[in-house]
């Protein structure tokens, strides 16, 4: 089950205290499906993240959509992954490349609440997904 982007936007609109935002992010992370241990391999690690992030992409040739399974060993990162996936998962490469992820982060006021190292990790994950989308377009 993937979180719905509109619901995420709505929920963030209601938060005042940092506690509420973080509880929500952590709970999103808890609802994110885990990758099987066998898929958590070295070659699937996303570089640039402080905690471990594994990304397994697959392409549905019929629907022309990208399926992304992403996991991390940290709860907060899993929550951020859930937000990114709400925007990206099961979309076409064109949709992924057209999506304004920085705009979403700004709307949710996410990066301001993340340390710069974690913000960079988040950007590294986004860059990795965009690269995947570009490769599908070129293929």
């Amino acid at each position, binding site marked *: 089950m993937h979180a719905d982007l509109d619901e995420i936007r709505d929920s963030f609109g209601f938060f005042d205290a940092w506690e509420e935002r*973080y509880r929500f992010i*952590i709970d999103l992370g808890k609802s994110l499906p885990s990758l099987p241990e066998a898929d958590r391999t070295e070659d699937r690690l996303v570089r640039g993240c*402080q905690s*471990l992030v594994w990304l397994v992409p697959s392409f549905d040739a019929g629907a022309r959509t990208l399926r992304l399974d992403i996991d991390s*060993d*940290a*709860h*907060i*990162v899993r929550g951020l992954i859930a937000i990114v996936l709400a925007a990206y998962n099961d979309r076409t490469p064109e949709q992924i490349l057209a999506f304004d992820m920085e705009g979403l982060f700004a709307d949710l006021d996410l990066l301001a*609440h993340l340390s710069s190292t974690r913000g960079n990790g988040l950007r590294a994950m986004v860059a990795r997904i965009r690269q995947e989308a570009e490769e599908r377009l070129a293929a």
Partner: protein
Amino acid sequence: MNRPSSTTAAVADIARLRADFPLIQGRDDVVYLDNAATTQKPRAVLDAVRAYYETTNANVHRGVHQLSDAATDAFEGARARVARRINAAAPSEIVWTRGTTEAINLVARSYGGSVLRPGDRVLVTELEHHSNIVPWQMACERAGATLAAAAVTPEGALDLDDFEAQLGRGDVRIAAFGHVSNALGTVHPVADLVALARAAGATTLVDGAQAMAHYPVDVRALDCDFYAFSGHKMYAPTGIGVLYGREALLEAMPPWQGGGEMIEEVTIEATTYAGLPFRFEAGTPNIAGAIGLAAAIDYLEALDPRAVGGHEGELLHRATAGLQQVEGVRIVGTAPDKGPLVSFLMDGAHPHDLGTLLDRQGIAVRTGHHCAMPLMQRLGIPGTVRASFALYNSTADVERLVAGVQKARSFL
């Protein structure tokens, strides 16, 4: 150890020392528990640096003019101050560096480069900071030597049997180990380690980065050949550090960087090098940093080391006891002798989760592998959360840490 002198004022009330640190005073929104990464600076250090620039600034060792003389006096006075603090035989045994990392690189490059032969080994420990691993790997690679690491016990102490066994092979040329572990806080029995290494014919380097703020260090009592440390971890500015080296060894070592300040005479064909310690100090040094470091030493020495040690020990004790009360928290590193830092994990939480939730509560800790990835691999953990204390931390800081961890637990 060093010299409890009559000028040492006993500090009855450590709490009033907080007022000496402008950042600690000015930022009461932050509980600063990342002192092993870098400490805050007392006003005395900030004033010394400022006064130097406002009254004495000139380049050292080269001018005929009065300002340059005054700057040189202050700079060389700082060197002598460091020499006295660690009981070096002479100021010429004190080489200025940018920090611990550069000091170890200097030894690995210059000394390692001239003595290591194929088949030799350099012995470190599994507890080392990357700064005390990577320079040796590079030196070993250049020389065809091998790097070995003495094992750590599950409690986070050095396995002395393994250390001795490694030395017993008779091929260890250099043994390099930390004084206090930055990742777990373990205090190593350095004098014993040095004695064992020397008996096995090895030259010794001690990484003192985490020791200098907390203990009086006497390099001659330790009997080590080299001792490296950073100013910024002992209340002094960043960008200044020290390599202590035994004169006979430094004397025989080739320079490692070329440039001004380190020469006697230069022709296009050849250069004769300056004497100690200038041969290892190419280029204009960090004059203000050296003066700031001397001021930090003055500051530390005006305090009663037993009062400071007792206070920091109390912080460690309370933090350890408090964290152990939180369900699911496990202390990593339970050696009997520890410096004032505590590393810990919480069941089901990544160190970064905990670190982030503490940060949101204004508590500054370090999370991750603490530049000791081999140690984390050995302990089979991704990293830890580390709270490290300095003399200006209070028991209230410890209470906020424990309460913060408790609150974080409710999120996870």
